[in-house]
């Protein structure tokens, strides 16, 4: 089973929501990740048939379904909001797509509803109405309804985004098991890098209505091809610092270091540093040193986020392990291992000279 989006473009009220979407999704799960307003929901709606594309085609199993009504398609959709039929019981909610399919006899419907409800952990809530359930249970009901009928295309649009942290963790683990042996195209959208990395499925990065990159999510995290991909997959947000490349070296805020490997063309560059790669103690002899002033320390328990002010009014966030206490206004030194710095040219394309993170630079 495949889902192909061919040259899909969506324009609404003079704004471009999606542009040049060419995508081939194989059987099994694919993750769609992108920041807010990247066009994730629009893409999902086009794939489902809820929104006709301005131009382009949607092809399922080799059949062009662009102009076929969503009522006639074999799709299921789970929304970020918990959408259930409030006037029906949980049982009837899950059974609803099966009831409309004449190929399911009553007994088979009953069996499937109980089976899927058990898997989703709502087996004892079947007589309740959706409004009597907690948010997590409501979303489980919505997912159960989407899974009840075997479909060609299952779309989940940030299904866990409105849940609280603990429920999210738990449901994510459940979903991971569930889609493993799925017999259809599953497209799962999220804005949370941890979710995408956790599913470890083929991943599509979407940004500003365009596909930024398609590939293996772990590889994209380690060697982001563009700044947009790096920023999308970084949580907490990527620190960005300006730099200037010349003669095989990069100058950055008064610090200069040699670029290992191939020489980048001279010119402005952008350096991306993940917060957990910034330390306030020296870790190696080659570390870049930035004099800084402490502005704020956010303690979350397992980590402390230290907000630093670098020369030139640049902000840098360091993620330090454990609970650490700092006094705002005090000076500090930020250390960054140059081997782990991501280097992008002005257009945001990763410079090919950047060595793999594991390469030994300190030699």
């Amino acid at each position: 089973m495949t889902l192909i989006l061919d040259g899909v473009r969506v324009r609404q009220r003079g704004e471009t929501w999606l542009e040049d979407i060419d995508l081939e999704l194989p059987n099994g799960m694919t993750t769609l990740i992108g920041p807010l307003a990247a066009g994730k929901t629009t893409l999902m709606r086009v794939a489902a048939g809820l929104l006709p594309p301005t131009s382009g085609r949607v092809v399922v199993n080799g059949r062009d379904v662009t102009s076929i009504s969503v009522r006639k398609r074999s799709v299921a959709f789970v929304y970020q909001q918990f959408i259930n039929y409030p006037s029906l019981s949980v049982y009837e909610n899950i059974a609803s797509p099966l009831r409309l399919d004449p190929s399911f006899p009553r007994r088979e419907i009953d069996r499937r509803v109980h089976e899927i409800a058990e898997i989703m952990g709502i087996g004892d809530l079947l007589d309740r109405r959706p409004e009597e359930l907690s948010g997590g249970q409501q979303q489980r009901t919505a997912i159960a309804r989407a899974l009840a009928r075997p479909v060609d295309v299952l779309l989940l649009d940030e299904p866990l985004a409105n849940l609280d942290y603990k429920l999210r963790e738990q449901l994510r683990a459940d979903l991971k098991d569930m889609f493993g042996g799925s017999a259809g195209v599953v497209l799962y959208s999220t804005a949370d890098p941890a979710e995408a990395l956790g599913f470890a499925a083929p991943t599509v990065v979407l940004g500003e209505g365009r596909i930024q990159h398609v590939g293996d999510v772990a590889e994209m995290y380690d060697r982001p091809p563009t700044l947009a991909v790096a920023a999308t997959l970084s949580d907490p947000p990527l620190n960005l610092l300006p730099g200037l490349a010349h003669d095989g070296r990069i100058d950055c805020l008064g610090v200069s270091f040699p670029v290992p490997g191939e020489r980048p063309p001279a010119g402005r560059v952008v350096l991306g540093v993940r917060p957990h790669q910034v330390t306030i103690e020296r870790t190696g002899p080659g570390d870049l040193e930035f004099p800084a002033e402490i502005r704020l320390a956010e303690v979350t328990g397992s980590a402390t986020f230290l907000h630093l002010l670098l020369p030139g009014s640049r902000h840098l966030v360091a993620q330090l392990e454990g609970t650490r206490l700092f006094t705002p206004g005090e000076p500090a030194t930020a250390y960054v291992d140059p081997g782990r710095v991501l280097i992008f040219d002005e257009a945001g394309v990763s410079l090919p000279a950047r060595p793999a993170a594991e390469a030994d630079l300190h030699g």
Partner: protein
Amino acid sequence: MPAKASPVAVAAGTRRQLPWARTVFWLYVATLMLPLLWMFGMSIRPNEDILGSFALIPQRVTFENYQTFFTDPVWYSSYLNSIIYTSMNAVLSLIVALPAAYAFSRFRFAGDRFLFFWLLTNRMAPPAVFLLPFFQIYQSVGLFDTHLGVAIAHMLFNVPLAVWILEGFMSGIPREIDETAAIDGYSLPRFFVRIFLPMIRSGIGVTLFFCFMFSWVELLIARTITSVNAKPIAATMTRTVSAAGVDWGLLAAAGVLTIIPGAIVIWFVRNYVAKGFALGRV
């Protein structure tokens, strides 16, 4: 040990009691109820007592007036007429307004906002404006003096109101529910009946109530476009002056009976109306 205060006492304690609140309340209720009680008092008295003496408590109680009402075909048939065309109007208005409100709430089409506003402007015109056209048209198409004729005439005012109220309720329901139903494979009519209508049933209750209320109390149009067969009760009540003078008792009995259907409808929709007010559409 401090005495345990009951939760009720605590709640009452936090609310400041105005010294005259109770008195003012009952005074208000009495003012409201007095005409109604007076009318009820009149309806169970013979005419001589009504005209002859002024008494709060009737000396002689009689149900003759009600008996006359239910045995004289002029009276009871006009009472039935009003009930028939009012019910017809409520049902027809709802049938027309439900799809219209759904379209206004769910679809964007050319001129939709103007159309929505234009619908409401129909209510701004005084009913008298429509008297002559209705009279002439009904004469020529054979709707004159029919229940259906009155029901349709009242739709001119009730459909805009119904669309307005229903649109408010429908827009409160997320569009994603419609989409989920489409994905599940519901056809539009099936979705409408099985999923959508149960979700807006309080809106339907409120709409029925307002349609009923307007149609039940409207006199001018209903009287003009009827003569005998569909004559409304209110019209009959204005024509009780005979050679023997005004039949006060009978008129009062008719008045009491006219209030009853409205009271019944209000009883059924009282909770829904509160929701409608909360939505700001009533």
